[in-house]
């Protein structure tokens, strides 16, 4: 899906009801296509509606507003400044590099979308501002990097610009005047229960359980009706809403309800499988609509439309048992939790020298009591002396990120996978208590797969481990490389990476995916040396029942601590990981 006609339609709908629909996630590299889409939306918005851009690394005070420093100093009294969110009230905010947004920024954006208002509690100020805004989240993420799921969940649409025909395609059918009329019509558009029920059934059939997507689909259907000059939502509107809002969120194919279908078949006693399918679908829509017999029920039409909106490849990934779930697919959790600069631990009096950040508010507070004596204060500006300077002290917690690279291939898995899982669980449990991040890469068959991006969520760990299947060939080099990349990424985010490799060391798939044990072993050694050059603390757990020389050589190549698993229990492994974490931190 995501052809140009869909993109054009999303641009129109978004300009009909920007804050109601929450917005759109635009995935793709910057370029003429993206500019074109942004332009489509901008020229259709109401003339007075703001259309602002939020820079990638916006600070919280710019986002929410705070103390206006220059004004405060000039006037001698605290002056509040509006943030970008409040100034975007009634319009759209373009969030640049949304996939990299700090967790706090994401939380503020979500709160603004939920409440249509923002509360500012900063710098000794308190204020509430209206903020009915829609977002265009520009997502330039590669691979596993995604816009935070909490934010993506609140945006009605998601478009993948890279999947579009690069030569371009259809432009919006409705011009700014028509969209303006649609905006005026929107409050008068009615929406029947049958339509909502059909949308709800389609959502559930696709495994979209949450209520927010359903609400967004209902709003999209209304906006679509308004756009097409109707005052009542019809089938076509619901179909388009299902295609644009529900399809991209699918977590399963609608046919994946075997027990239900079988049940219905038995009830109806219809031996013809084709007929049973149709009858079952008809019954599902019963009571929800009054379609006369012989016509295709509304529920089916909407579901079919929603299915047409499922992006190619989304469900393939589901079928092979990966943990990709549309609702929960996080971008690498690495950037989502907190700033890595350590938490502020108060301030201290010191001139702001290299690397120290002047805390302006605290400095002003320090200067304030002396203003009379110094002849400053009201109207005369604030006299700040060097002894007033305050800098923020940060306590730098040593956050680590433990990356597991688990051999799930036939040679290792069948015998040891259960034990490996036990060890991973134990280590994860201990990491969780210390609030470290953990990530999980599994390698088998053709390559390595990131089962769990760095996270602190136990719920996600549980799911990933449950989904960890065993069997197949051993692409050891690919597994080590994947762990290596994750380690560098963690370092880039200010965390201390620790790699735990669990394998029996018997590689038989080369780096380029060929079956060749000899080359595969050389490749694995080369990857191991790469890891060693990166100086990442590494633990090598030999999962072979009788430890062999080959695994030990690999461990030496990566300069890892070598431990044969048969002599260790889960608690012992966890102790070793923690010891390594302490060493790495020094």
């Amino acid at each position, binding site marked *: 899906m995501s052809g140009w006609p869909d993109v054009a339609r999303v641009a129109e709908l978004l300009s009909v009801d920007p804050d109601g629909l929450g917005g759109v996630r635009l995935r793709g590299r910057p370029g003429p296509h993206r500019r074109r889409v942004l332009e489509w939306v901008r020229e259709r918005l109401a003339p007075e509606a703001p259309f602002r851009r939020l820079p990638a690394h916006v600070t919280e005070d710019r986002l929410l507003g705070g103390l206006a420093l220059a004004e405060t100093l000039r006037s*001698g*009294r*605290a002056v509040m400044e509006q943030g970008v969110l409040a100034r975007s009230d009634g319009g759209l905010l373009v969030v640049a590099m949304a996939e990299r947004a700090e*967790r706090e920024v994401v*939380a503020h954006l979500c*709160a603004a979308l939920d*409440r249509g208002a923002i*509360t*500012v*509690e*900063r*710098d*000794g*100020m308190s204020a509430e501002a209206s903020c009915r805004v829609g977002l265009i989240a520009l997502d330039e993420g590669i691979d596993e990097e995604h816009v935070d*799921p*909490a934010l993506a*969940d609140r945006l009605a649409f998601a478009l993948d610009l890279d999947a579009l025909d690069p030569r371009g395609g259809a432009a919006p059918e409705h011009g700014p005047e028509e969209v303006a009329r649609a905006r005026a019509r929107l409050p008068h558009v009615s*929406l029947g229960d049958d339509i*909502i029920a059909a949308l*709800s*059934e389609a959502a*559930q059939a696709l495994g979209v*359980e*949450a*209520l*927010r997507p*359903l*609400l967004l689909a*209902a709003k999209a259907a209304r906006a679509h009706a308004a756009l097409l000059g109707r005052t009542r939502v019809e089938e076509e509107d619901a179909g388009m809403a299902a295609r644009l809002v529900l399809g991209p969120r699918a977590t399963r194919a609608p046919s994946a309800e075997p027990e239900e279908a079988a049940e219905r078949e038995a009830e109806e006693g219809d031996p013809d499988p084709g007929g049973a399918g149709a009858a079952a679908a008809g019954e599902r829509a019963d009571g*929800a609509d009054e379609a006369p017999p012989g016509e295709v029920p509304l529920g089916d039409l909407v579901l079919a439309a929603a299915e047409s909106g499922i992006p190619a490849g989304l469900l393939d990934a589901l079928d092979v048992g990966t943990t990709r779930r549309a609702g*929960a697919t996080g971008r690498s959790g690495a950037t989502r*939790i*907190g700033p890595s600069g350590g*938490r*502020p631990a108060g301030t201290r009096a010191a001139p702001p020298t290299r690397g120290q950040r002047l805390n302006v*508010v605290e400095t*002003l*507070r*320090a200067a*304030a*009591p*002396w*203003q*009379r004596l110094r002849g400053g*204060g*009201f109207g005369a500006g*604030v006299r700040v002396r060097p002894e007033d300077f305050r800098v923020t002290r940060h306590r730098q917690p040593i956050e680590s990120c433990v990356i597991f690279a688990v051999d799930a291939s036939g040679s290792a898995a069948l015998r040891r996978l259960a034990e490996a899982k036990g060890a991973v*669980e134990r280590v*994860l*449990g201990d990491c969780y*208590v210390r*609030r470290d991040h953990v990530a999980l890469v599994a390698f088998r068959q053709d390559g390595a797969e990131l089962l769990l991006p760095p*996270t*602190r*969520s*136990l*719920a*996600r*760990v*549980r799911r990933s481990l449950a989904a960890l299947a065993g069997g197949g060939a051993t692409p050891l080099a690919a597994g080590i490389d994947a762990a290596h990349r994750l380690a560098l990424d963690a370092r880039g985010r200010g965390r201390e990476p620790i790699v735990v490799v669990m394998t029996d060391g018997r590689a038989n798939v080369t780096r380029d995916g060929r079956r060749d044990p000899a080359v595969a072993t050389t490749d694995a050694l080369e990857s191991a040396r790469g890891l060693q050059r990166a100086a990442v603390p590494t633990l090598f757990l030999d999962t072979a029942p009788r430890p062999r020389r080959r695994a030990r050589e690999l461990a030496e190549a990566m300069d890892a601590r070598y431990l044969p698993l048969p002599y260790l229990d889960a608690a012992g492994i966890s102790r070793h990981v923690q010891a390594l974490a302490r060493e790495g931190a020094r």
Partner: protein
Amino acid sequence: MTPYPFTAIVAQDELKLALQIATVDRSIGGVLAFGDRGTGKSTTIRALARLLPPMRVVASCPYHCDPADARARCPHCAEAAGEREAIETPVPVVDLPLGATEDRVVGALDLEAALTRGERRFSPGLLAAAHRGFLYIDEVNLLPDHLVDLLLDVAASGENVVEREGLSVRHPARFVLIGSGNPEEGELRPQLLDRFGLSLEVRTPDEVATRVEVVKRRMRYDQDPEAFAAAWAEDEAALIVRLRDARARLPEVAVSDAVIERASRLCQALGTDGLRGELTLIRAARAAASLDAQREVADVHLAQVAPLALRHRLRRAPLDDVGSGARVQKAVEDVLGG
């Protein structure tokens, strides 16, 4: 903006019950609501503000002191002795935004007074604003640990002590802490879990009729919040009365020894640590009985509140996937059912 009416919220019975218990017995220790995204946790909790009867406060006192309470002397009322004119004001529900700085939470030197008049004055923070009301933290699991520690400390002691910038202030800060969050985005430290009185898991309704109703009501509200609120005014009024009566009745609700004994057997069966679980269980059951217009706690009340009061106090392995709520339910059946 007009908040969404509490009585118009579809399903979410456990959350609604927990919040009502917390309004009837404010010493219950707060409510923690964890669960799926987009289930209207925040809406439900914000709707609470509508339910609370106005409280009498000392006019101009930033800490909302109760004029009838001679002991609770905040810095303001201690200075302005005698001037204790009373006014009525709604019970505060204070939002703690995720980006709030520590000075805004605990209070700090009043910058304006200091700059313009050279006065050293304390500017009360969110903790003062929440006194006698509710402090709501969305995404409590994402709040920096040091702030969560601070909040739980103040919530437990009922007092905020500030020592900074040459200021030395202590003032009462008794509030009901309400936290919500989504476990997919990071869990709350286990040490903090059992410091909340009640906890619950919020789930998405899966019946089509319920889901249709949720969407319909929400769209009507979004279109015209005032008209929507007006349509529910009668239900809201009835609930306000019910809550007021339940609060007044609470001290008279009796707890028999038999009920206490069964509560303690329930806790034993579940292996909860310490006495806090038992106390909370009995208190919550008492509040539930009062909401039920009963003058004596019965087993049905214990059963009703047991999951709320106990599910977060069970010992469990970090990766234990068995729902704690289900374990409590089973123990309830074993202890009370037979």
